[in-house]
């Protein structure tokens, strides 16, 4: 994981100093989504149009008459960021082809939270990816509906307490494991799918750049720590992101034309899940047996991924 250490030396030279997502937004202290967004925008550059779903990032950035966006931005509703982004792409393409706007490439991207992606936004996302639009979709996954008050989504991890999957006496939090959306995106036969986390900024930005440069559909699933919703400390966002990767709970990989590749290798033994869980209030109710169940699920998912990493071959 040297990249992150070297980051401090190289970052000033490598990374655009301009902020396309600006200070002055209203996100909580230590918000992982907003950090991800800032880095994503740096990697995308100014020739970008953003279609954003309703959710924390929309709410913290666009209280009329203020905006934190330096690039063209549109928000319409919760479930339709991918559909709006499809329309933006089609509009720009037609206008450019017909000579009605300057002949210059502008990327259409859609950005949504996990709710706006894996749940209510899934249909629009699936449609946009299947139709092959030149559209990069970024899911900012903070593992619940945070904007509306920490309700569970299908990206909420097993046993996590949320306001609709509380740690009750009979049922201890979320009953199911995380829906594997990157896998569903791979099944759409799109050229580029990746997972990323702002705790690994260079890796994240590299992936965003790849997604931008694919002239077709691309999907990046960004693990975004939410101290408010996870009942964690706001100064531990980066650490929690790293731990999620180091435990193998959220491995960083990319899938280019069907070929899986880890972008953060596991040279040592994976860190135990307990280290990660105990830093978050949403897992406070877990006893050792529960932790073992969580660990077993993470191990199983990790094995499944490793099998794909070892056996998958590129389509072409």
């Amino acid at each position, binding site marked *: 994981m040297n990249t992150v250490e070297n980051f401090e030396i190289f970052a000033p030279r490598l990374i655009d100093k301009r902020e396309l997502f600006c200070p002055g937004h209203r996100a909580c202290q230590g918000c992982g989504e907003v950090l991800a967004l800032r880095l994503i925008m740096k990697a995308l550059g*100014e*020739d*970008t*149009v953003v*279609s954003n779903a309703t959710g924390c990032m*929309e*709410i913290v950035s*666009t*209280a*009329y*008459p*203020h*905006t934190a*966006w*330096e*690039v*063209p*931005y*549109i*928000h*319409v*509703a919760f*479930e*339709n960021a*991918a*559909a*709006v*982004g*499809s*329309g*933006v*792409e*089609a*509009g*720009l*393409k*037609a*206008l450019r*082809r*017909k000579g*009605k*706007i*300057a002949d210059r490439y*502008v990327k*259409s991207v859609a950005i949504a939270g996990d709710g706006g992606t894996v749940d209510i936004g899934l*249909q*629009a996302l*699936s*449609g*946009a990816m*299947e*139709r092959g639009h030149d559209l990069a979709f970024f899911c900012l996954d903070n593992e619940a509906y945070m904007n509306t008050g920490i309700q569970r989504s299908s990206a909420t991890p097993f046993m996590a307490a949320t306001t609709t999957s509380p740690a009750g006496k009979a049922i201890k939090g979320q009953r199911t494991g995380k829906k594997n959306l990157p896998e569903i995106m791979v099944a759409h036969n799109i050229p580029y799918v990746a997972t990323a986390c702002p705790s690994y900024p260079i890796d994240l930005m590299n992936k965003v750049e790849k997604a931008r440069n694919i002239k077709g559909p691309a999907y990046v699933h960004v693990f975004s720590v939410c101290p408010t919703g996870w009942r964690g400390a706001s100064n531990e966002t980066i650490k929690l992101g790293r731990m999620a990767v180091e435990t193998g709970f959220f491995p960083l990989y990319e899938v280019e034309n069907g070929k899986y590749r880890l972008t953060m290798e596991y040279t040592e033994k994976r860190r135990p899940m307990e280290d990660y869980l105990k830093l978050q209030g949403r897992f406070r109710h877990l006893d050792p047996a529960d932790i073992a169940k969580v660990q077993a699920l993470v191990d199983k998912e990790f094995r499944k991924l490793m099998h794909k990493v070892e056996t998958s071959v590129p389509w072409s």
Partner: protein
Amino acid sequence: MGKRIGMEVGIAAAEAVGLCNIDVAAVYPITPQSHIAEHLSDIVHDGRIDAEFITVESEHSSISACVGASATGARVYTATSSQGLMYMHEVLPIVAAMRLPVVMGNANRAIAGPLNIWNDHSDIMNQRDCGWIVMHAENGQEVIDMTIQSFKIAEHPDVMLPTVLNMDGFQLTHMIEPLEFPTQEEVNKFLPDRVPFATLHPDKPVSMGCFNMPEIFTETMKVKDTALINSKKTIIKIWNEWGKQFGRYYKPVETYKSKGAETLILTVGSMGETASVAVDEMKKAGKSVGLVKLRLWRPFPLEELRAAIKGCKTLVVMDRSVTFGGIGGPVATEIKSLIFHDKDRPRIINYLMGLGGRDVTVEDFISMVERAAKKKDETYEFYGVRE
């Protein structure tokens, strides 16, 4: 103007769109709109026009894609019906609030439940508070003309609002009618390129769709209301331009033999043609009956309606949808409340009829007028219902 040809009205709607130099269409099929969707895809796939045709996975996405495309400055079209329009509902008020021109064709069909694919107006009436310009065509020629007019209205700098053109499902969309198409040159002369107010482009970045705090939301709502009210002036202006160029004149409220008539029938959409035959027959029989037809539903043409019904004693309002719970039909309800304070206002008799494809004949109109004369109060009636 080209020569008259026989063509199905749904196909003609797509042909009319094909004359308008659209940039993007996003359409999801539903009966009875499907021939519009299919024929428009033919036009694009045969290379007759240069446009992106997005085969969306749902109507929620068709209207959403239209919003995205319109926000880039593109000229956009979509068409739907019934359940499709209901599925779009969430996005419709947003399009109007964002002042983005989108032109929609709606093949009117009953909304479920129970499921019914035939004609009535419950689909569009359920969208009436969305802030769109809502118009109704009565025949195939009007579908062609009003489709072309819609783009000019929606995109006009004094309007910048989405429009929906209603055409009765099957009873209009599936009829083969003798139709006249303007030539491409004539349409080009009538319909200039869109000049958008603001677009999604990095040359001049803007944020669209920012949320409103309570301090500003009321003002936004007033602006939305005012924009729709003000659009009437431009709509009428554009209809007059059309009349001058093509010789067919359009008005917010059309009348037929209404002058001096004691009883007026009020219709919306294609049933106006049947009603006009009924008026002729009743006139022949010496009755004082005329016809008023609402072409424009939003913005509501109140002055024009007042002028059209002035002096009549009984207004028989035909509603093709129901406002459930003891209220009656939306058209009658609105007219009642709008003219409530008018001196010498007519008695309003309201029929809920032609629901879910129930045929309404000339004889039915005559019978409704006859029964209206005998009615003591102003309550509504489900016409022809079998108890």
